[in-house]
């Protein structure tokens, strides 16, 4: 009895710590994005609040929290208020199974990957609800676009990971990382390069980022599904988007980049690197993927709706299927 209570307490504490650290990362990811894009665009990015604008995310949070909560007339109030919560909860829940090092995770479940994919799918409901309940045609179109986009790209996303699952012979995220040690560079990146490519493209679409940011296409749909949201409710969507980006980056790191392990060839050249804790490697890899998100946003235009669908169904899914077949054949004959 006492033991169960003890486990629950530890889990709650762990979750709280994880949550706090994660939120800090999200806050500074917004800062990083503004800085990266700023420098791509020959600007400085935030510079005013704190040294080099370091306190800007905190100022933003304060501003968003204290803004008036506006609910437009004739909206479906219940769904309108619940939609951002669904998005945020779904995005947050994925982190329950994502291991930061081999010892640091909240839950180590056997079907970790399936859980993450499933929960991410739930996040789509938030967007569809927001678009539907807002009583705005722009939001409505944004919601519809997002529904179609997320459903078609989820297929590609899931299939791109199947190759990894076949190679690792496990759905468990920790197990997947451990299995990568015996491969060149200590990662599935090169045996699964097709899968990785599909994953990166689907990841952009799944998180509604450029060049697939159609649900929130600024210049067409003004802001898309959250056009009627402001203040704290808007910031919940914003949070959910960044959390999803982190989740996708973490997933890419775990499935293709060897998670928290050090690439063996690096260790051979610089043996002293073994004292660097795994969490640092993990974060480096995650932030590399986050940088990809920012980089794409700084350089790429936006696809059109029909082109997006064509890429999803005609390019990514066949590629992913081909990858699955190829991986299975190699696995079977070796």
């Amino acid at each position, binding site marked *: 009895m006492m033991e169960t209570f003890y486990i629950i307490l530890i889990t709650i504490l762990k979750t709280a710590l994880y949550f706090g650290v994660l939120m800090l990362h999200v806050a500074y990811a917004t800062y990083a994005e503004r800085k990266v894009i700023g420098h791509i665009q020959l600007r400085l990015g935030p510079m005013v609040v704190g040294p080099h604008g370091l306190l800007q995310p905190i100022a933003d949070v304060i501003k968003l929290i204290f803004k008036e909560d506006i609910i437009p007339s004739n909206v479906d109030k219940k769904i309108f208020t619940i939609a951002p919560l669904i998005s945020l909860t779904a995005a947050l829940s994925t982190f329950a199974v994502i291991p930061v090092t081999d010892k640091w995770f909240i839950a180590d479940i056997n079907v970790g990957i399936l859980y993450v994919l499933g929960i991410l799918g739930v996040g789509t409901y938030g967007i569809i609800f927001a678009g539907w309940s807002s009583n705005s*045609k722009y939001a409505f*179109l944004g919601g519809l676009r997002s529904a179609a986009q997320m459903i078609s790209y989820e297929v590609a996303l899931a299939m791109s990971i199947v190759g990894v699952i076949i190679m690792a012979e496990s759905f468990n995220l920790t197990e997947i990382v451990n299995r990568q040690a015996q491969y060149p560079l200590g990662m599935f990146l090169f045996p699964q390069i097709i899968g990785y490519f599909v994953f990166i493209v689907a990841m952009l679409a799944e998180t509604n980022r450029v060049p697939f940011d159609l649900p929130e296409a600024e210049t067409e*749909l003004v802001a898309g599904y959250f056009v009627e949201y402001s203040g704290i409710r808007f910031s919940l969507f914003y949070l959910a988007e960044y959390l999803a980006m982190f989740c996708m980056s973490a997933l890419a790191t775990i499935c293709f980049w060897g998670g928290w392990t050090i690439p063996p060839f690096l260790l051979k050249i610089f043996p002293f690197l073994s004292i660097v804790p795994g969490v640092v490697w993990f974060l480096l890899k995650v932030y590399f993927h986050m940088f990809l998100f920012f980089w794409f946003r700084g350089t790429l*235009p936006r696809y*059109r709706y029909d082109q997006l669908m064509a890429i999803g169904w005609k390019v990514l899914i066949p590629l992913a299927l081909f990858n699955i077949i190829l991986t299975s054949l190699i696995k079977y004959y070796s």
Partner: protein
Amino acid sequence: MKTDTTRELLINMGPQHPATHGVLRLVLEVEGEIIKKCTPYIGYLHRGVEKLAEDLTYVQALPLTDRLDYLSSIINNVGFCLAVEKLMGINVPERAKFIRTMMSEMARICSHLVWIATHALDIGAMTVFLYAMRDREKLLEMFEMVTGARLTVSYPRIGGVRCDINDKFLEELDKFIEEFPSKVEEYETLIDRNRVWLKRTIGVGVITAEEAINWGLTGPTLRGSGVYYDVRKFFPYDAYDKVDFEVPIGKNGDVYDRYKCRMLEFRQSAKIIKQCIEKLPTGPILAEESPRIRMPSSPLKINKEDIQFEIYNDDKNAEDFIKKFTEVYASVEAPRGELGFYIVCDDSAKPYRMRVRAPSFVHAGVLPKLCEGSLIADVIANIGSIDIVLGECDR
């Protein structure tokens, strides 16, 4: 009994939509994402410039023309001045002609820079926006150097230009023109070699040459369809017959060809400016018989007489000038197309009627033709590619 019927979703795009370039309002009837009907509504920026001009003398009406197409105000001024000069039979000195040509091409580059910035932003590539604005800033500073104003300069005068340019300005301009083609290449690296950009523009908003002529399109929008027409070549004004330049034309008449035309025009404009700097003659900058506005010589020593401008010439009567023509039409090649000024003169110092042939107005009319049957995202690409300025459209 109530029967359920389905109908198209009506979307009101504008007048405060971020991508309708000002206050254009489009009412779209969409079925899913496909546009069934597109109706443009204009007039949200109507200031009655044409009517206001009837109550002002020719010299006074000049600053009004700045506010038509505020992105290339000098070209509007030149257009108006050309019309009045034609009316009064004023011969512009050579130096003034070259300065006007040079400044017009600077304004064209300025305007095209705003176009590429917003067009790329509309399609989603936001980095080009800041690159283009960076270069536009340099041009605006050069305008400020000569005219004291950055956007609405009112620099040309009837019969010439207001003030002379100096060597420092020419030096800076030369430096800018030297490096400008490489800047254009920089924009092209960002978008022109980008598959997403090509997919979004090629084959979108196609208009054939015949249709384009029938719709009355002019400028790069017409040339994108492969029609060779440019006021600068066909009805040369100022110093355009003394400089050597090409008129780039497209082939398919889609968004990409219109984009390509303008990108090539950047280089031609740079070429024209370069020649103007080389060939710039010396001499007066204002025709002798020109009605002049006496401006305060320095802001510190303003006295009342200086502020109240007066039209003066030999016999102190502006009306004497106006006897050769009763009505006149003069047009210039604005960045958007043929900008025409039609003036009817009733032998007084004020125009009896002034009418502006605004390319944006004509181009706004072709939007339904371009958009119907395509997707919502294409509307944005089309608006960007015909490059309308609502200040000119609504007047």
